[in-house]
């Protein structure tokens, strides 16, 4: 009975996992077979006629190395800035006293329901006024602070013992000093979580970079990939190589840091 149930359970798990991973496996396999080989993928895999030619084409002919660097650089920049800015604010909302703090925080959390697209059109016009259309800064700026990030940090920072902070104050430490030497180390886990969220979010973002970046030397991978699709829709295997290139870095990053990532989801999901 127990064995039967275990078999049933694991059968279901394996089946579901296979179905889930199949599209990704197909993507990787199709990127490795010669042009036109994806329509009979199994035959090509069995005959072992694998090739890296599509990756080669991406890097040489289509200059995707630059795009890869753009994506990485932009995601890293947004992550660095926004983690710092959100950590400052999240900590303050949790542990520092100032007039209207809780009302302000509730107001901010309420804005989580505002879809990002709502202000997109005027934001574009605003960036135009600032001369930031078609610059990296134009992509970075809207991500500088996020309500979600502040929320995440605050929930975590609530658990910092007040006595620790008070002791430091009695020792005469300034607020920023306390923040840098006591709070930041304590916040480390949630900041790593926030950093992964932000990095992945920026890496995967499509709509905004699509709108703001007009010069193809500035494109991020998703934008370049959509661009490539317009030209190479018939070149299945080449497109799959592009997809692998886009997906692989974030999958690796996730695999390395997944504990933090999962924890972040749980924290955000279990708000009161």
């Amino acid at each position, binding site marked *: 009975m127990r064995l039967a149930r*275990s078999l049933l359970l694991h059968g279901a*798990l394996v089946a*579901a*996992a296979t179905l*889930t991973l199949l*599209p*990704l496996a*197909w*993507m990787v396999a199709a990127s490795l077979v010669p042009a036109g080989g*994806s*329509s009979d993928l199994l035959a090509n895999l069995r005959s072992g006629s694998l090739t890296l030619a599509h990756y080669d084409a991406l890097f040489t002919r289509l200059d995707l190395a630059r795009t890869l660097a753009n994506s990485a650089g932009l995601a890293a920049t947004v992550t660095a800035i926004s983690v710092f*800015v959100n950590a*400052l*604010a999240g*900590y303050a909302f949790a542990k*520092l*006293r100032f*007039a209207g703090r809780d009302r302000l925080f509730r107001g*901010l959390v309420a*804005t989580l*329901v*505002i*879809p*990002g*697209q*709502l*202000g*997109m*059109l*005027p934001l574009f*016009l605003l960036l135009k006024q600032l001369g930031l259309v078609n610059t990296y800064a134009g992509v970075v*700026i*809207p991500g*500088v*602070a996020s*309500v979600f990030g*502040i929320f995440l940090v605050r929930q975590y920072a609530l658990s910092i013992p007040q006595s620790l902070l008070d002791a430091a104050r009695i020792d005469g430490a*300034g*607020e920023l000093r306390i923040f840098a030497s006591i709070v930041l180390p304590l916040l480390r886990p949630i900041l790593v979580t926030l950093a992964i969220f932000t990095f*992945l979010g920026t890496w995967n973002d*499509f*709509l905004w970079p699509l709108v703001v970046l007009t010069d193809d030397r500035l494109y991020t*991978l*998703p934008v370049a*990939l959509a661009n490539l*699709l317009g030209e190479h829709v018939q070149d*299945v295997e080449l*497109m*799959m190589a592009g*997809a692998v290139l*886009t*997906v692989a870095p*974030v*999958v690796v990053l996730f695999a390395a840091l*997944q504990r933090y990532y*999962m924890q972040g*989801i*749980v924290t955000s*999901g*279990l708000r009161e």
Partner: protein
Amino acid sequence: MRRRANPAWLFVAPALAAIALFLFVPVFASLLLSFTDFDIYAVAALRNLRFVGFANYQTLLAEPLFWQALRNTLYFVAVGGPLSVAASLAAALLVNARLARCRPLFRTAFFLPVVTTLVAIAVVWRYLYHPRIGLINQLLAGFGVAPIDWLGDPHWAMPAILLMSIWKNFGFNMIIFVAGLQAIPERLYEAASLDGAGPWRQFRYVTLPMLAPTALFVAVMTMIGGFQLFAEPYVMTQGGPSNHTLSVVLLMFQEGFRYWNMGYAAAIAFVLFAILLAGTALQLKLRPLGGGPT
């Protein structure tokens, strides 16, 4: 005693300034924009910009294309939402089962699609859905199913996008459900077991009620995400065939950035926002019916 500025403001100022400047100001400007006829003539010369009151909203509500986009989006939310939540819950129950081995492995497998880049994945699925060379039809042919023109047939295009979207997202909510499941005290199951409840009754009378708050949160977030459907149809179908995958945000993008009907596009954005608010409020109101403790 001289009052010094509260240092706390220094901490929140950068974030608040950024949020105000790049979220509140644009959203407010967008509201103003939705009462004007900002279009390419206004781009050419600002004097061609006129205040038109609610004309954009009137046009919008009389525009069959908008209703079609709204229907498509509602379909995506109303059909895809519950399916997605159900898939997440099922996966969570499987992964969290007491008998399950290698839990982290399966959890990671189910979660992997979540971290992937939507655009890349949409490109992949475009080919998976190809009528003749696509993997899905090839697999279905094994069961004797005639080839389906997934993205070309108006009846199948939205379900196809929906299926991909569920595949991409169910892992996220699964994690939240797993956390919710693990928070259910073991003694409740023991008590139910003592009362003679089998696995199904335990699920029905312990797991589901205890999971209700989590499910509500998941449902609201899934709905909000669903209303923002954009990249999937943009990459896979451009809204076709016959506009059957045109979403509200895609319509907004096309009106706004393809044709620069900014006033009209802003009105679309606000109607969407109003629907989102109403939807969220409705779900929160329905909460007591779920019967769960809060």
